[in-house]
């Protein structure tokens, strides 16, 4: 076959696929406006941005905002809080669906299994506002958890205003919300395990635990690792949704995290450049972390995102 030059290739391609390209126009427009245009956040982080003057007319200030952030008193506290909350969620929240799907997998009754699945999916559909409303009600001094706790410890007031309880409440309510939904990926991975492996194991008189450790767990390991890598990429970006709803002035010392700080400084105080710099810092850390985890996992287990 004769090798065509680029122009002929493009012409042929366009003749065959022009309709596909036309279909892709809305997607391109969307990507450019809503995904690529906001990337100017990188530039704003190095500017004293004035909306009047626009990006090209504002003064460049170099690393001023970054320096300002890293020298503030609250910087350490906010990064520390974010890490604490994020790691607590990772340590307790991440394994929960894995463990649940392993136990679900061992259930002998199909009906019970299905029931557990459906019931544990339910909280995923409840909005953050409602979940936080429930949490505030339940751990309040009149709530069934709060009043029990107060009787037990002799303390007064709502549990949510106690600094040492903020993270446990946040993490536990997160687990309640997402544990069941999180099993979906693992159950899908369990389904894709070759049945013959179990049969072979049975012939070798492998018991329940031997099967679990030699067939089931290796079977879901790739999924586990991929989800873990993705999760690592979000370690500094704990969303502000729930934190903004659960935090009170009394717990600000432990509950103020990067995203709520960016929200306060950026949208409330309108320090555009400064909060863009903080946001950019988070993203750089996230990309670094996801790359490191990916490389490590590639080396150790052979599984990787790219």
């Amino acid at each position, binding site marked *: 076959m004769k090798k065509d030059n680029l122009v002929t290739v*493009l012409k042929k391609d366009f003749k065959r696929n022009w309709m596909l390209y036309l279909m892709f126009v809305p997607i391109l427009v969307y990507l450019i406006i809503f995904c690529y245009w906001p990337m100017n956040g990188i530039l704003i982080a190095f500017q004293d941005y004035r909306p009047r003057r626009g990006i090209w007319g504002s003064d460049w200030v170099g690393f001023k905002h970054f320096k300002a952030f890293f020298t503030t008193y609250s910087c350490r506290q906010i990064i520390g809080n974010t890490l604490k909350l994020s790691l607590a969620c990772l340590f307790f929240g991440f394994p929960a669906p894995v463990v649940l799907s392993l136990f679900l997998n061992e259930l002998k009754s199909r009906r019970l299994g299905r029931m557990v699945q459906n019931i544990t999916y339910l909280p995923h559909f409840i909005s953050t*506002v409602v979940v936080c409303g429930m949490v505030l009600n339940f751990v309040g001094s009149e709530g069934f958890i709060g009043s029990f706790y107060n009787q037990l410890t002799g303390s007064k007031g709502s549990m949510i205003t106690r600094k040492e309880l903020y993270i446990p409440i946040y993490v536990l309510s997160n687990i309640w919300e997402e544990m069941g939904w999180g099993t979906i990926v693992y159950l899908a991975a369990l389904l894709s395990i070759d049945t013959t492996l179990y049969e072979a194991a049975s012939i070798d008189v492998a018991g329940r635990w031997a099967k679990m450790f030699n067939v089931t767990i290796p079977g879901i390991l790739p999924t586990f690792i991929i989800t873990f890598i993705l999760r690592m990429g979000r370690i500094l970006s704990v969303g502000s949704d729930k934190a903004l709803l659960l935090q009170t002035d009394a717990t600000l010392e432990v509950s103020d995290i990067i995203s709520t700080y960016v929200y306060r400084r950026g949208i409330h105080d309108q320090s555009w450049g400064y909060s863009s710099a903080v946001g950019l810092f988070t993203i750089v850390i996230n990309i670094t972390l996801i790359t490191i985890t990916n490389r490590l996992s590639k080396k150790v287990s052979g599984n990787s995102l790219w």
Partner: protein
Amino acid sequence: MSNNKGSGRSLFKRRRKLGAYDWFDYLNTAMMLLLCVVMLYPMWHVVCASFSDGVELMKHGGNILLAPLNFTFDAYKAAFKHSLIVGSFLNSVSITVGSVAVSMVMTILCAYVLSRQRVFFKKFFNLMIVITMFYSGTLISRYMLITQTLGLSDTFWALILPGCLSVYNMIIVRTAFEGVPDSLNEAAYIDGANHWQVMWKVTVPLCKSTLAVMVLYYAVPVWNSWFSASIYLKSREKLPLQLVLREILIQNNIEQLGLDAINIAASIEYAAMIIGTLPILLLYPALQKHFTKGVMIGAVKG
């Protein structure tokens, strides 16, 4: 997938020669039942409290609630009479319906193009999309784009357009589209169908399950979101339900909203929770039969 009833079922069917239960099975069953109780109780509490008499509920204090106290619809009646709750409910419905419609069209278009073979710019398109998974601006730059550059503040478009294409969902749909046998596409092309016709008449109908699940995946976060509405919407008559719920549940503004009548003061919060949750929860059973099939396939391959 020969078993049409959903592959999720086979998980519990496989390698179960319903043998005798040993200690572990009993323990496991007990733990699962306990888990169900723990998961369900908070929701049950809300349901009971919403049907309870406010005064009784207040007297009851922090005790476990197993059934409604003096069963009554008062809280719901008050909620449905309240113009802000009803209005914001309707706003949420329009935002969700609009958002899902836009998202589905975008997702189908994008997934269709990227699932075709022999498209010269496909690699480039893919790269463009993958990059956005890592970085697509910060909260501040997006906020400035929408309020200053596009001037969309205080419109529903500010909630619908950004994020109307979820890369994750698109990948699931693309995987499903790629699973449509090539022979079907070829047959349609030979019959003179163009891409547009093949997309709507062959690909989309064959991937109904996956697309039904996508409706759920797009609708739930939109219905439940409050943050973007809180920064983009200014006028009170445009507020979505979740923001009104925030006023009632988190900021406890029930006096300002005129919802502090003594018989409902305590129960109105719970009724509001139910009103905010039920519509989206009802979507789940409606789409559930597609669910196991549609998602499992996407999840395994994607």
